[in-house]
């Protein structure tokens, strides 16, 4: 009786343990895939492009960030762009879309927000090619104007 059970279970075990390995490899694969997806951006929407070299910064950052209706930037968890830079405040800045235009606003940061190397005091309209400086990070605002030209 025991022998038969043991014979059966040894096959079940082999199947199960490879199934387990497969499961873990699959999870890791999905994990890596989602990271890659994060670095790819959607087209036809304005986005922020990182100007700094990614290797020079000691925190996680992506090359591209898509801009939505309201994009908040800061160190806090609730922000849409979360950057663990120590020169960035918990709630640092936000970019708001209004009728197809994008506006940059500082939301009470300590070190300020810079547009083309000038500290902004009020809400400013962004145009293609503007440089946004936040903490140690500098972004390029890219709004492809292909539609307007056509």
């Amino acid at each position, binding site marked *: *009786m*025991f*022998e038969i*059970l*043991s*014979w059966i*279970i*040894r*096959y*079940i*075990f*082999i199947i*199960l*343990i*490879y*199934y*387990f*390995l*497969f*499961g*873990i*490899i*699959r*999870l*890791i694969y999905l994990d890596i895939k989602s990271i890659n997806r994060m670095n790819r951006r959607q087209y036809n929407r304005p986005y922020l492009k990182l100007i700094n070299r990614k290797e020079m910064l*000691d*925190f*996680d950052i992506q090359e591209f960030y898509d801009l939505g209706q309201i994009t908040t930037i800061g*160190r*806090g*968890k609730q922000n849409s762009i979360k950057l*663990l830079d*120590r*020169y*960035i*405040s*918990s709630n*640092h800045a936000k970019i708001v879309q209004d009728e197809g235009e994008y506006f940059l606003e500082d939301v009470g*940061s*300590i*070190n300020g927000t*810079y547009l083309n*190397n000038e500290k902004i005091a009020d809400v400013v309209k962004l145009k293609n090619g503007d440089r946004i*400086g936040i*903490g*140690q990070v*500098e972004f390029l605002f890219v709004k492809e104007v292909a539609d307007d030209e056509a």
Partner: protein
Amino acid sequence: MKLNKFFRIQNPIYILIFVNLLFFGLLFLYVKPLDTFILASGAGVIALMVISYLAIIKLQMGDEYIFLIISMLTSLGIIMLYRINPEYGVRQISLYALGIILYFLAYIIFRFIKGWDKYLYLYIIFNFISFITTIAVGSSIGGATNWIQIGGFSFQPAEIIKVSFVFFIAAYYKLRFSSDEVVTHSEGLDSYEDQIINSDVNKDLDYTEEEPIESIETEIGLIDTLNEKVKNVYVFLGLAYMHIFFLLLQRELGLSALFFIVFLSIFYIYEDDRKLLLYNLGLVLIIGIISYFTMSHVNVRLTTWINPWADISNKGYQITQSLFAIAEGGFFGTGLGLGSPTYIPEVHTDFIFSAICEEMGVFGGISVVLLYFLLIYRGFKIALTIKDIFKRIVALGITLIYGYQTFIIIGGVIKLIPLTGVTLPFISYGGTSLISAFISFGILQAISKKTIEEEEAVILE
């Protein structure tokens, strides 16, 4: 499409539970007279795994795969040990519980005590004191003087030193590279000031250079003559070789080889001087040759590796029994409880891999190796994502230690390399080695969680 659905696994933890249920059920039938304690301990093991796994997921404690893989390895070990001798199995389960507690404790302590990189001298002193006490009051079990007995409780200090050895290397490189940075920054400082005067003020330069200016003042205050001395690479080499020398003195061949390989790997990664690396390799070759002629047990290990069949009834007995056991198992094994792994001496510690191969087959053995592959892959992955050099070397060192340890012992029992006595991490019976493995991977788990410091932003001028 249907096949795709079939392979869609919700979570590997279910498989882990199922494997444990199957094997503990089988063990219940195997051990005569029937003992319900086995079922209870099986349930305990499963409960421990599930609770810890849920805790890691729910509290977002970083990497979730490490613990799953460790659990699979440990449960295979517990099952095998139970089958070899129920007494070992019961002890291993209690050690497993203790190990999990220490795993989380290591996680908490490593995360919430800051400045691990500053205690370089503490690690060195701790290591040497432990070595000296081992030699002074240690007792020898199985040919190596490496046990300290306190009351009825005995442990191997060398297993704990593995962790602090990695900390020592990491703290050393942190010390050296952080002070190197200060020097280069201060050199670049003059040109930087010129830049400010000459060109219009660039905001970005302002930010990035702000921090080093502050740290120069504090760093110079801290650097004393001792630090300067230790920073010399030859002093570092001397200290590292002292560790290996002490281990050789204890006749711990496996561990001294392990320490050396781990040290050399990190040295290779962080040292630009390739010539120095070659000298090190040459030195070890000389040490190896000398020890072959002077130490009898090195000689025995090598001759039994080259030809164990010459002295099959005596010196080559262990390794040949191991080879017989692996051959006996075939692809799918004899089935749990149907082989005879107890013919191999020391099957519960060094030779547990042969027992697994015999009863669970070569496929089972390969799956164990693959589990270690994945574990080490995760370790490297974590090490690559960390920016801080101290944490990076600690993660790397821990991964390397367990990777090489697995290679040394599995290679040893299948006669790929000369056999040296180290344990198979997480599977072998052995209190200290299991616990130190749990502590090490607890630290790795702590490193894998990204530090999200919510303190306020640093104020710029």
